[in-house]
């Protein structure tokens, strides 16, 4: 069974990769299979986790005491009335419930998380003031002691020693103005300029000319950096996925799995070549 599974995994991986050559029956088969399996799997899980667990089992154990579980079922079923034009208006009740519940959940949460907390983090003082409290001083002393201890244990700066040094420098930067404080302030300034210039770029109530134009152009620069970072990360993500598949091909390509990768690659190349010659005449005529 494991060997069959390995051959299926390798085969389907190669089917999907064959699209890089051109659209072909292998790819179409793999794609349809994926969509079908994903949908089927999700439906079965939903059936068991929602209907069986949340309704059927509950009613079986205590139908008279927990009859109310049928209420959400009834609301859900109202959605299906969309298919019957005469009573389709009933589905609005279900949508009203969904939208009301969804909005009630989402609006306060998103406002707090994505606006209030983010605004708080953006509106930091542009210049850090040294913290002269006793607690801060104690924290520096503690971090220094931890660093000294780590240094004494390992004379060369290993990762662990480096971590304690960084913690000490972090703590010290809060009680006096150091290079780390300056770096933090510079970051705060960059965030401040970035946020406001990008907001200005999307502010269309005044004409973008003079200083406003310069500021909005800075906003474009920040946007470009974000898009560049996103593109770079996307490329890295795709390479990771490619590597993941190559690793599967390598893992199942050995003798333990009867050289599935090598055999299937040869078979696929053979079939694709045969298909190419078979369809050449047709493609030329088309």
């Amino acid at each position, binding site marked *: 069974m494991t060997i069959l599974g390995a051959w299926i995994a390798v085969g389907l991986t190669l089917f999907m990769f064959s699209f890089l050559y051109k659209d072909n029956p292998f790819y179409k088969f793999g794609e349809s299979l994926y969509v079908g399996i994903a949908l089927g799997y999700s439906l079965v899980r939903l059936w068991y986790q929602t209907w069986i*667990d949340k309704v059927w089992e509950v009613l079986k154990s205590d139908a008279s005491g927990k009859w109310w579980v049928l209420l959400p079922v009834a609301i859900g079923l109202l959605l299906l009335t969309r298919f019957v034009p005469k009573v389709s208006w009933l589905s609005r009740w279900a949508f009203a419930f969904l939208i009301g519940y969804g909005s009630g959940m989402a609006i306060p949460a998103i406002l707090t998380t994505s606006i209030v907390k983010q605004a708080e983090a953006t509106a930091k003082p542009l210049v850090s003031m040294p913290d002269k409290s006793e607690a801060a001083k104690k924290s520096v002393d503690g971090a220094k002691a931890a660093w000294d201890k780590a240094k004494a244990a390992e004379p060369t700066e290993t990762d662990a020693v480096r971590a304690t040094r960084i913690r000490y420098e972090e703590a010290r930067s809060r009680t006096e103005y150091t290079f780390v404080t300056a770096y933090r302030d510079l970051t705060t300034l960059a965030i401040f300029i970035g946020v406001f210039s990008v907001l200005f770029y999307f502010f269309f109530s005044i004409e973008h000319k003079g200083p406003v134009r310069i500021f909005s152009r800075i906003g474009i620069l920040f946007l470009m950096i974000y898009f560049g970072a996103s593109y770079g*990360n996307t490329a*890295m993500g795709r390479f990771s996925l490619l*590597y*993941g598949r190559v690793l599967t091909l390598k893992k199942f390509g050995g003798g333990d799995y009867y050289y599935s990768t090598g055999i299937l690659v040869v078979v696929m190349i053979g079939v694709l070549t045969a298909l190419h010659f078979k369809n050449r005449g047709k493609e030329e005529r088309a």
Partner: protein
Amino acid sequence: MGLFFQKLLAIDRRWIFILLGLVVVVPTYHPLNLPGLKASPNVRAVYDTIENLPEGSKILVSFDYDPASMPELAPQATAVLTHCFRKKHKVVAMGLWVTGVAMAKESLNTTSKEAKAVYGEDWVYLGWKPGSVAVIAAMGSDIHNCFPKDAAGADVGSLKLMQRVKKLSDFDLVVSFAAGSPGIDTWIAYGSDKYKFKITGGTTAVNVPSMAQYVQSGQMIGLIGAMRGGAEYELLVKKPGDATAGMDAISLAHYLIVLLIIIGNIAFFISRKRKGAAS
């Protein structure tokens, strides 16, 4: 020379696919062990958080990804779980993505077996529940009501570890490995900001820029980004795995893309200059 660049701009893209395939396949079969892998501050922050928790702390690990993101997130999850079990923390796992159930089981089984962790005492797998936001909200008040049974069908109340955990705020840390939404942002918006627990996690490369804002604002502690982040975590737990092995291939693929972008730009500008001169 100009003609060469014009031809280069019109090159069949399948040559690029072959080149890219080669730079990924060759180091996979013959590792080059390229130097330069170091833990970034964000990954170290995640490591330090788990490292500095007292032994036996309760950690909720949410597997919020599907097979498409497995190469990026599975190594992260495995490295973090290894660390948690090594530090003798108690792990409760679950997922918000239906297609992630099998992958969560695999990571949990492998790491718990290595650490000789006992199911029910040291770790529990609750499985998946539909509803994402509603699941987090329900867990905030009563986990046992939300997950009356674990993934294997056992009564959650009968598991020793779960008797110590009733609601989200009982956890010392929540870790989400997320390929999108529902994921880290959902856990922050509907979980940590409301029920006040510490949260950290890992995400795919595509999502790193949008999740980094939560680290900067202090809403989450550190962030493991993509396979590279997974490799950094493997380095910190001193257990090289799939992510570390993949760094050669990923690095070479990046070099190739950078080279192709440079060549493509040179070719574009030279061709444009020649066209301008000709007209």
